[in-house]
């Protein structure tokens, strides 16, 4: 039972990691990187590391995404539509 749960989590985590590198939209890529952290925090709980899980949830999911998003806004890449103008982002 726990194996199936861990398997689903690992698949979600790897898919999110791949999509963070492959998606054209940088906002979606940042959100995927934070989804990796959420799945990782759940795996840490299953591995009986509540301290690390808490840190990963607070830091990786919250603060790191906040820092990345602020940087994205400052780099003027905060745009929902990637098809239109920026060729250099790819």
């Amino acid at each position, binding site marked *: 039972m*726990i*194996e*199936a749960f*861990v*398997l689903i*989590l*690992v698949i979600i*985590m*790897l898919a999110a*990691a*791949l999509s*963070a*590198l492959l998606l054209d939209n*940088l906002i979606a*890529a*940042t959100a995927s*990187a934070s989804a*990796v*952290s959420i799945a*990782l925090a759940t*795996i*840490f709980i299953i*591995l*009986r*590391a*509540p*301290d*690390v899980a808490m*840190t*990963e949830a607070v*830091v*990786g999911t919250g*603060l*790191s995404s906040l*820092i*990345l998003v602020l*940087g*994205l806004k*400052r*780099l003027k*890449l905060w745009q929902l539509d990637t098809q239109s103008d920026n060729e*250099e*982002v*790819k």
Partner: protein
Amino acid sequence: MIPDISSILFSGAIGLLVIGVGGLLLSNNAYRVLLALVIAEAGANLMLVIAGYRWDAIAPILTGDFTPQPMVDPVPQAMVLTAIVIGVGVQALALTLIIRVKKAYGTLNMVEIKKRMEMDFDRLSQEANQPGKLEDNS
């Protein structure tokens, strides 16, 4: 047909590490290199925590009537705890560097940035080698 839990966990950690390192090598955008760094860090942290895991053990916190029981190894967990917080500091520093590079060169394309940087270095070294312009420090 579900594989063994240890092989699932190890394949997750290895997958994160390889995806992160692959992104570091292959991506062409400076911001995506930063995302790849975040993912590779996550994989390394997962690998460390797995290394200290034990079957039939409780989390390293005494609860209830404080009777000693077999516990998960607390040392790798403490190291990962500090590694995560350091990772955020490194991310913020890298982000400030990316902002500065974007301001200087106007692009995030790594190939372009490298070309322009080499041109700048060449120009600076030629200026430094010209006699009479700068003082000879050697």
